[in-house]
């Protein structure tokens, strides 16, 4: 039962969409004007909820198939055509209460009540789910410029680089430029000793440091040449000995 509780609370969180779903399913089943097709859809959803999703025996075996990852198992909810059921139930309710001949004011009020109920019950995605874009590739601008600078100054077809292993920089470069091999995290290098050790132990052509770091001022031009800068980073290329 723990699995079932987890699935339900993680899926629906603190929204009232579960309440709306139950109300819609009940309405679809009891309303005589709902078509048989709609009623079959409601019965199908109920069978899926109780037979598969909320069934502790099925859930415990199902999770095994997902490598014991309960978050991956959340996709079992795709079995339910949730938005279709909600919209169908709400439409059937609205058309039961409002006929085409009713006055416009009544139609608007009923629809507004429905829309407000949906808005209060649910949640939109917040600002944190969407970010501003700075280039046509919609990746971090520093990552975009670092990639271009490395490709403009590369010696090998597949240049090897050490870059800061942050989500924006590392994975921005990986998504944008597949030719660059990212071998190491330059954030782990904090002084010249560590830099020389990295040079001894690893082969790389480029290294990227944040401008705000102290290391940039310490880098010898005999070893590294600055080939470009972005707003927040400096890109160095190893000097061929």
């Amino acid at each position: 039962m723990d699995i079932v509780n987890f699935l339900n609370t993680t899926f629906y969180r603190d929204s009232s969409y579960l309440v709306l779903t139950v109300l819609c399913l009940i309405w679809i089943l009891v309303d005589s004007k709902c078509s048989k097709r709609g009623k079959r859809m409601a019965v199908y959803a109920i069978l899926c909820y109780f037979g598969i999703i909320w069934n502790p025996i099925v859930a415990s075996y199902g999770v095994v198939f997902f490598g014991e990852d309960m978050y991956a198992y959340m996709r079992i909810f795709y079995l339910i055509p949730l938005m279709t059921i909600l919209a169908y139930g709400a439409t059937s309710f609205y058309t039961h209460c409002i006929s085409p001949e009713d006055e416009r004011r009544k139609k608007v009020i009923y629809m507004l009540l429905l829309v407000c109920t949906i808005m209060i019950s649910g949640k939109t995605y917040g600002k944190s789910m969407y970010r501003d874009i700075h280039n046509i590739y919609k990746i971090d601008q520093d990552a975009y410029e670092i990639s271009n600078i490395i490709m403009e100054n590369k010696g090998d077809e597949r240049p090897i680089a050490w870059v800061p292993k942050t989500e924006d920089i590392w994975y921005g470069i990986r998504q944008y430029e597949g030719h660059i091999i990212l071998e190491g995290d330059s954030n782990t290098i904090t002084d010249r000793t560590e830099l020389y050790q990295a040079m001894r132990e690893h082969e790389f052509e480029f290294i990227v440091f944040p401008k705000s770091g102290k290391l940039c001022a310490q880098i010898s031009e005999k070893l590294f040449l600055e080939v470009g800068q972005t707003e927040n980073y400096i890109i160095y290329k190893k000097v061929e000995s």
Partner: protein
Amino acid sequence: MIAILKIVFGIVCVLVLLGVCPFVIGVLLSKKTSHDLSYNFIYVYMLGLMLLVAVSEVIGVPLTLMKASFSTYVLIYSGVLILLMLLAVLTARQRMAELLKITIQSVKNADRRWGWILLGVFLPILLLEFRTTYVYGDDKVYLAMVNDIVTSNRLYLTNIETGGTDGWVIAKYALSSYWLWIAYLVKISKVHVLILCKTILPFVFVPLGYALQGLLASYLFKGEQRKIWIFMFLVLIFTFFGGFSTYPVTYRFYTWVWQSKAFLAIIAVPFMFLYCSYIYEKGPSFRDYVFLAIMNIAMSSTTLTGTGLAVAMSCVLSMLYAVLYKRLRIVFYTILTCIPSFFIMVFYLKYAAILEKINFYG
């Protein structure tokens, strides 16, 4: 200027690959059925799209296990696509013209208030062109993976973290060809994967997702236009306010096309639900069962979740309709159509052993 022309060329390629091809191939598949829906543009389009995705799975999985190059996949897939298109043009062009005529007439006769629905569908896409969904977790993996496939000309054998070479492929990538299919679109259109997925494809998949909801509405309300319009309006509202967790099928999914599970949830699963409900109600023919098997393969190509969902959905629906219409053979034949999915499930469970047997690691 050249960059703009390149993008325009890419958009035209995407429109052909995702606009014309599925429709033409769908006409070929639907021409022998007597279903009412076989004169519905979206239904015919979806038949074609599911077949395209299923063909990608049938070609992509063996080539991945054979460690073939991406160019080989592109060549074979393009060849099959061209053959299917030629077959359709040679044998079903009259029906194609008829269907186009019916569709154009429906659009011309549509009520003005449908413009509000189209606004609700397209306005968020336009606004999101100037934003991007926050990249985390799997997002960066899949986009990097598609980029690597195109850049390296290898099928998955690239380390996603570093970009270096890998000697192995995990089961969920090897057995699901969705990212190969996206890489194919990137290769043919010559548009970068980031531009294709984050800018161009939302204009295809978001309207398609809503069109499928409209098709479901048409099926549920038996063509009553007023109710379908109200349904579509409410679907828009429910979708926008469904962001209470990251799991419901909400607006974030609609714009998340590089996530195969988004394609599964928005496109494949709703269509399978409609298809199964429709054929079981009418009484399925042999061709219907064959296409159901193809749908199983198409669902498997999105993710391994799709494999399980295809089996679960078709079996539950078949049992429901078998009891309602007292046609128990529906369950038996449906189980037979799930054989491709069972095969993939077994392959997944015995993946390591099979790779050893075929000497995948050299």
